């Protein structure tokens, strides 16, 4: 198991968001964290790479193990280099070119060798399936790209520092259907080399993209199984109604 979460609880101020979360993420597979809006999916992700603690009043208890090491006992900056994150809305660095965007993570961790940097940037852009589209003009501002391209730029930026795990927080929600499809293909490809955890509220996306799915509701993991199993034979009533789209109705009745 690449990542193990044990009895993780999380709060913002007095409000508790995650309750006794236990999860095992398998290496080089795509694990989806699925659930309705506002149920803690994003917080779950942010607890893994310690972004949650950046918020004022944030608190976490429990353990998060990366290859058996407690993430909360390592320096946060190292954790975040080993576990990368892609956000909902693409956020390339302003006033920086495509090249600079991808290179910055490397440069700021001390890499000086220009040839090495150039090579790593190319590799990252290739792995993010963006290289062919931008190779002729890497000096264009990152913000000049389309939404889908910007998101792939953000992926390249994250890949450049050579993480082992990639966390994705609803990465296609700001994209049009074509860009979404491209990104989903990319995600499947990435899982050959990286462990991917993707948060989504879209059942079809989980079906297309993930090997395993965890269903989260009101801060609790209600069910976890291989995606195929979970979607065909959900064990939990709420899971079933979410999958079949009758979730809202059930909430009103229950």
């Amino acid at each position, binding site marked *: 198991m690449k990542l193990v979460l044990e009895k993780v609880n999380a709060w913002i101020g007095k409000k508790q968001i995650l309750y006794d979360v236990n999860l095992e993420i398998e290496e080089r597979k795509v694990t989806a964290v699925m659930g309705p809006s506002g149920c803690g999916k994003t917080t779950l992700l942010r607890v893994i790479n310690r972004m949650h603690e950046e918020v004022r009043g944030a608190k976490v208890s429990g353990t998060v193990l990366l290859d058996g090491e407690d993430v909360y006992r390592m320096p946060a900056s190292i954790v975040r280099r080993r576990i990368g994150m892609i956000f909902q809305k693409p*956020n390339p660095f302003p006033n920086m070119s495509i090249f600079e965007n991808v290179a910055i993570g490397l440069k700021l961790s001390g890499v000086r060798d220009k040839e090495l940097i150039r090579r790593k940037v190319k590799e990252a852009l290739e792995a993010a399936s963006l290289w062919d589209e931008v190779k002729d003009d890497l000096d264009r501002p990152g913000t000049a790209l389309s939404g889908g391209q910007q998101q792939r730029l953000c992926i390249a930026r994250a890949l450049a520092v050579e993480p082992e795990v990639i966390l994705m927080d609803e990465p296609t929600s700001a994209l049009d259907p074509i860009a979404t499809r491209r990104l989903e293909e990319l995600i499947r490809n990435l899982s050959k080399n990286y462990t991917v955890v993707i948060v989504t509220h879209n059942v079809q996306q989980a079906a297309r993209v993930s090997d395993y799915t965890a269903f989260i509701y009101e801060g609790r993991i209600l069910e976890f199984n291989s995606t195929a199993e979970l979607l065909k034979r959900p064990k939990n009533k709420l899971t079933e109604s979410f999958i079949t789209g009758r979730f809202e109705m059930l909430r009103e009745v229950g």
Partner: protein
Amino acid sequence: MRELKDRFMAFSSLVAMILALIPILSLLAVTLVEGAWRISPSFLINEPAPPGQGGGIGNAIQGTFMMIVVAAAIGISVGICSGIYMAEYSQKSHILEIFTDVMAGVPSIILGLVVFLILVRFIGFSALAGGVALSLIMIPIVARSTEEALKEVPNDVREAAAALGIPKWKAILYINLRAAEDGIKSGLLLSTARALGEAAPLLFTAFGSQFYSGINLLQPASSMSLVIYTYGSSPWQDWRGMAWGTALLLLLITAFMSVFSRRRSR
């Protein structure tokens, strides 16, 4: 009747606007006419001479340049750092913002007095003291514009940097400042243009001089703004003409700078 009142207000406000515009147009025209023919290579290079014997403002140009360099070095470093603190580190920046705005409102002659009391007694009248006085004008302007530019940088940029494992101070230095660079640069240009035109704080710090002062910052120095003041108020036609020429030069420089700054922020 109501229509009449409205028409009357339209007319009076138009008159007000015209009255507001006449001085600047007149000033630009007069300065151009009086000053243009004064500007020549010898004007720009020579030291001043007694009235009627030619002379120029070369030393004043040099003095201005040196003092602006000192002022900018201090003003930019203290200003940007302070702006960074207000935007990136402090929880409630209101108090600091108020103090900064109040510092900006201190009359510039008072700034000169303070630098006189604190610095000139130790190092004498000098370009350095003048530069320090000018830096006090620049600091609050640079600080506020840096702060505002940094606050415009969206938070998801900071999140992206943090998620890459970049420590906060590196992110500020290499990413946030970069993202805010347009606003910061325009603040720098604005404050420098302002410092170029000031004379009051230099009266008792740089003091003024008739000579080139070389690289020595510890000698009294002249500036273009001081020349306009002293020569403009003198009884000699010749010297007053030099004041006009200097005024035109100063206007051209500040105009160039503000056009440049507006270009950047587009």
